[in-house]
């Protein structure tokens, strides 16, 4: 993709442009940061009230014990997937366009998974017991955790995902931290020096770094596919109609990548402007991200369709009943919002003009984010609200506390992301240099152009 990019900058411009942007962001950055703090505070207050007054405040009750909190958990885990896809799978495929956005995508993964990890803690109510419940340790009767439960699989999957994402995100930062260390003075130099581990950029270090990067990509690639598969098993391993289906793992993975790519676009477009990075995060790179969004949107649309077909074709009246009600019952609004946002609006991205028209593409990506949240809500709530005991059937809508905590989760995610942008380079400088014209001498350039006049 970026092979087609006509760079008007050289590698000598990269550090200056990116690091000056960090030191002097646009004023809008501070407004965005302040807005995220306000949202975060709303969530903190709501959570504090829920802890004080108990889980009754959340509105969760039989049979919908998994409401907005687990919806948020699945949503945020899904958001993280694009980061790993971009940093690992696209690395193995040698997709050069990833080099300009992989740092922001990896940061997004780390903060999204941390945000997701909050929700099981919020959901259990008594958070102070949670670490003990989740760790694979025997209880007071020496009874071990149930390793056959998908919930403990999830603990392992999410912990692994967070640790691996965090380690490699940081390792990727080390050469750039060394670049910052070499530009600043005083305490900042000391701090960045310690954080960069004394990286010198020797060819020997680069050699082992690259080897590790490749091994890491090979390990993280199956992780992209496994984490949301395991999250989907939280639902699919039950015998609940609407959940008990083998299509869930690929369906969830495609949905996760769709929401993640849309979120990368949602984050990168304003930030490239706030930090003056338009010359490095090019429209061609953003377009490539949109193509991935379009691809995964079509896979998700196929999954929605085949899910209905299988429910009908199975001849199981309970399964079909759930699906029929999703589309025509009290949750029809959520269902059709999901369908339009995830399957219909992204079809506009078939048009090259739309892909290069940033405001329209941005609106589509925001709608995809909304649609993906509605998808998780739709699956979880409509699957639970009519369980095996008709006497307990009812209707569930999010309570004010749940909505406030959801707003708070967005505040938390964006707060950390904005803080990250202020102190660390949003674009991986060392990797960006790799997709820019190599610093050949004029003799070598003549030779290359002689061998290939189109180069």
């Amino acid at each position: 993709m970026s092979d087609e990019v006509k760079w008007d900058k050289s590698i000598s411009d990269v550090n200056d442009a990116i690091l000056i942007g960090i030191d002097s962001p646009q004023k809008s950055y501070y407004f965005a940061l302040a807005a995220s703090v306000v949202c975060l505070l709303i969530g903190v207050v709501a959570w504090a009230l829920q802890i004080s007054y108990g889980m009754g405040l959340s509105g969760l009750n039989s049979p919908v014990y998994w409401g907005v909190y687990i919806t948020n958990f699945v949503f945020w885990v899904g958001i993280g997937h694009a980061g790993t896809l971009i940093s690992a799978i696209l690395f193995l495929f040698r997709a050069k366009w990833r080099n300009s956005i992989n740092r922001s995508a990896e940061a997004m993964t780390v903060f999204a998974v941390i945000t997701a990890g909050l929700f099981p803690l919020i959901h259990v109510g008594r958070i102070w017991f949670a670490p003990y419940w989740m760790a694979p340790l025997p209880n007071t009767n020496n009874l071990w955790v149930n390793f056959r439960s998908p919930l403990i699989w999830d603990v392992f999957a999410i912990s692994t995902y967070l640790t691996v994402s965090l380690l490699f995100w940081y390792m990727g930062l080390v050469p750039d931290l060394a670049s910052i260390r070499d530009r600043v003075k005083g305490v900042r130099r000391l701090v960045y020096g310690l954080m960069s581990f004394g990286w010198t950029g020797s060819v020997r270090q680069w050699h082992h770094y690259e080897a590790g990067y490749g091994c890491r990509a090979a390990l993280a690639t199956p992780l992209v596919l496994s984490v949301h598969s395991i999250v989907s098993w939280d639902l699919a391993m039950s015998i609940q109609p609407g959940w008990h289906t083998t299509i869930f793992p690929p369906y969830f993975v495609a949905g996760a990548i769709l929401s993640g790519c849309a979120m990368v676009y949602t984050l990168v477009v304003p930030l490239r402007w706030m930090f003056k990075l338009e010359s490095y995060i090019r429209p061609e790179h953003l377009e490539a991200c949109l193509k991935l969004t379009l691809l995964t949107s079509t896979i998700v649309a196929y999954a929605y369709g085949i899910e209905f077909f299988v429910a009908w074709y199975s001849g199981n009246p309970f399964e079909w009943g759930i699906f029929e009600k999703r589309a025509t019952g009290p949750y029809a609004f959520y269902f059709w919002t999901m369908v339009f946002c995830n399957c219909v609006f992204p079809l506009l991205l078939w048009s090259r003009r739309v892909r290069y028209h940033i405001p329209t593409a941005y609106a589509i990506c925001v709608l995809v984010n909304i649609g993906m949240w509605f998808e998780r809500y739709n699956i979880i709530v409509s699957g639970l609200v009519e369980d095996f005991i008709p006497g307990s059937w009812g209707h569930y809508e999010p309570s004010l506390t749940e909505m406030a905590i959801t707003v708070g989760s967005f505040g938390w995610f964006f707060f950390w992301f904005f803080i990250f942008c202020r102190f660390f380079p949003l674009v991986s400088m060392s990797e960006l240099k790799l997709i820019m014209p190599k610093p050949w001498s004029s003799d070598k350039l003549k030779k290359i152009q002689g061998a290939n006049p189109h180069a």
Partner: protein
Amino acid sequence: MRKKDTKGILGIFSHLDHVCDAMEKIKSRDDFAGHAVYSPTSYHELEHAAGYGPSAVRWFTLTGALSGIACGFGLPLFTDWDWPLVVGGKTAGIPSLPVDLVFGFELMVLMGAIATILGMLVMGRLPNPKDKIFDVRTTNDKFAIFVPGANLEGAQAKFLRDCGAEEVNVTT
């Protein structure tokens, strides 16, 4: 903390092909013992010119991943043995291998990744915050070749200039 000889000369290059040529030629010289090459990013041309074999980091990864598989299967298998759950009067203690695969896989990735990072640090001789940074431009856009024990009048300095070094400086 690794101590190294920091006295010598440092040749600064702007062009990738010049450094690569110098590195190729250095292989046949015996007055460049202990030299080091610095680059702003990981150009594969430099790795080829240096003639490094496959990195040992992959063995760290393999060891970590195999240990992870062992731990991932070992933990649930141990608990099956430690406290057999009798379900429906069926024979207790039969391991649920398909379920254990989840833990085997996850810990393979986790421990493989941690071992990979360890490998990158150990083989790259990191952390070493006191390591000498000869020229701050090498983390920006310049390449450098450091030759320990050499001086500006020596054959090494002349060689670096002949290979296209824009500057040759003394390091302390």
